[in-house]
């Protein structure tokens, strides 16, 4: 099963990338995700590994994943090492006026599971589709909020410098 959604963010690709590159942020914006833990020495970048779980129906599904693409600030992609077969990708593209278009693609399934595997993919697709949409909207909110805070901080410092 393949799902894809996109959203426009009022921040440049670099700001979106900075937010996505930090593994601690994933539990805040990835909808349905119950675990996103660093496994191994590498926190981020190509080759970084994470244990991720997402609640779907009666189970928390996921496993060990590894970042296999890391093209700052455009593309990051991961694939599963153990657990459910999955591939995910964030595509970030620059838009005019300091905006970005962020796309999340997510593919999942269990190889060799036959007709029940196909059926379970169909049944879980609406839930996962909602998670993907919600993830992007939460990402947009978080990144834009971070940007507003950064801009406010910058204005405050300017005022303080001017008054001094």
């Amino acid at each position: 099963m393949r799902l894809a959604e996109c959203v426009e963010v009022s921040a440049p690709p670099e700001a979106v990338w900075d937010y996505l590159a930090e593994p601690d942020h994933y539990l805040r914006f990835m909808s349905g995700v119950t675990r996103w833990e660093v496994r191994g020495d590498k926190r981020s970048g190509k080759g970084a590994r994470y244990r991720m779980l997402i609640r779907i129906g009666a189970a928390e599904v996921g496993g060990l994943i590894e970042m296999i693409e890391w093209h700052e600030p455009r593309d990051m992609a991961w694939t599963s090492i153990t657990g459910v077969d999955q591939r995910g990708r964030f595509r970030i593209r620059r838009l005019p006026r300091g905006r970005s278009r962020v796309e999340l693609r997510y593919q999942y399934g269990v190889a060799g599971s036959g007709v029940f595997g196909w059926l379970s993919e169909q049944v879980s697709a609406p839930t996962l589709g909602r998670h993907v949409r919600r993830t992007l909207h939460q990402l947009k909110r978080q990144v834009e909020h971070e940007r507003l805070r950064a801009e406010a901080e910058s204005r405050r410092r300017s005022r303080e410098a001017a008054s001094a």
Partner: protein
Amino acid sequence: MATSTLADQARQNGKGEQAESEAAASGGATDLIGSLFGRAAGAIGERLTGRLTADLDDRDPDYIRETLPRLWLLSTIWFRGEVRNLGNIPEEGAVLMVGNHSGGNVTPDTHILTLAFHTYFGVERAFYQLAHNLVVASPIGQLLRRYGTVSASHEHARQALETGAALLVYPGGDWEVHRASWERHKVDFAGRKGFIRLALDQDVPIVPVVSVGGQETALFLGRGNRLARGLGLDRLLRLKVLPVSIAPPWGLNVGDFLGHIPLPAKITVEVLPAIDLREQFGSEPDIDEVYDHVTRLMQEALDALAAERRFPVVG
């Protein structure tokens, strides 16, 4: 080992048949019926014991992985399963999971917990479940063995824990799983404390697992333990019960030997924090004290889960 268990069982069967013959000789219609039933059960028992050679190597992670989607469908759509606090299970090492058992011979709580365990920790982590000999020897036993189900014996349990696996046991066994539906919110291990000695011998933590809803998948009327004793099933098949229930598709269901179609009751499973027996009860824990503690914790958790339910089956 499994072979010694078979030999013991075969001897028990032999004694059972002899006893049934003596009972028939003493006359009486009840004794005669009991004897005939006992002989038939003895013959079945002998055939079944030949299939109890399951060992830990029967577990097949690839098979589990490929069949998890159907288990997920069943658990999600039919039982609306919910498993809480799996993070209470230690991430690594041997652990003894102790559960209350419900649902007659269909045991949906086991299916849901098995699914949740394997999706949470991955099929790579060894997970075994002890089950009654009849379950392992039944036609579906072949499939269950690939999921890590082994016949209940102290030896199998010890072997599993020595490999560093997680092991799920239901001390209440057939006694608890066939309790009447109106006792559905009661933890009843029938005083069986072997799991505590096992945890102490192997020095592994106990993780209590409590489930609710399984006893609403049929209308369980009673265990029929007197009937089982009268028919000699306890000696012949290690069956302490001959349960009576009302369940589809049979209507009146005596024995539940062929299982039944479970009602789509909502099943909720909660994993409680791990208990390190020696840390909590000293180097030589009192078995009775530990038993009371574990069953009390489980009963409290079950009461809390039961309080969340508004209606039977619906949840």
